[in-house]
């Protein structure tokens, strides 16, 4: 009997608990959600998530590009060593036939993703500009 009463109280308290949690969570914005998001409840929630998701995708893309660049560099300059060392791949020079604009864009993405330090960024950028 007591157990049933307790269960009933718990079930009744559930909506209140959810409301209280949501009231607390409504103040929780993990992304840099601006005040505008408050104007639209559903849209603000969706936009906040889209922003987080897009930033994540950007970082992922930058990471993939960095890995690709490292792999190409390794292939071109022989990072593997020994018998497993691959000859220069036919498409490896493509990384070096990029236009300065493409190189700068890629560098910007690497910097935005936090894969290179500001000093490295500055040095690389200057090197690209000097090569023009």
């Amino acid at each position: 009997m007591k157990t049933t009463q307790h269960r009933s109280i718990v079930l009744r308290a559930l909506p209140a608990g959810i409301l209280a949690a949501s009231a607390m969570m409504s103040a929780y914005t993990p992304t840099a959600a601006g005040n505008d998001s408050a104007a639209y409840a559903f849209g603000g929630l969706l936009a906040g998530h889209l922003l987080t998701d897009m930033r994540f995708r950007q970082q992922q893309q930058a990471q993939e590009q960095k890995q690709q660049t490292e792999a190409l560099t390794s292939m071109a300059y022989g990072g593997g060593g020994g018998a497993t060392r691959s000859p220069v791949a036919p498409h490896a020079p493509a990384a070096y036939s990029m236009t300065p604009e493409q190189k700068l864009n890629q560098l910007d993405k690497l910097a935005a993703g936090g894969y290179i330090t500001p000093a490295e960024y500055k040095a690389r950028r200057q090197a690209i500009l000097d090569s023009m």
Partner: protein
Amino acid sequence: MLRSYLLSIPLTIAMTGLLSSTAVAALDKGYITGKWVINSQGQCDAKNAEHLIVHGDGSFEYSRRGKADAVGFWRIENDVVVLDMMTSPASFQDIHAELQEFAEYQIYSMRAMPVDRQPDQFSAVASIGDQMQQFSLKRCQ
């Protein structure tokens, strides 16, 4: 200290009882279909109103200022409304300017738990990714 704790128990029970007594409408297709206005103090024709239009065929659209910003399909799973939708992040650039760079359409899934269901209005606790929000919906006549 103890007295205030003891007093809080019946108060909490009374509040939760009040809340649960108003939750009468069953969550089903018949209930959820229709045009709902989100917040906006229940004003369906408010200038910046957000609308959720839920169709009986399992599709829905979310619109702001009369323009559809997301479309998709809905279903009910264990008293939770699941909204699988397609949208372009750029549609929300007025909320976050950074989103204007992302025009491609993407698929997202939002889950909303309706609480305090009444015939023509309810509150919902919605979550998508790590974001959570509570809002109220009122049926447009």
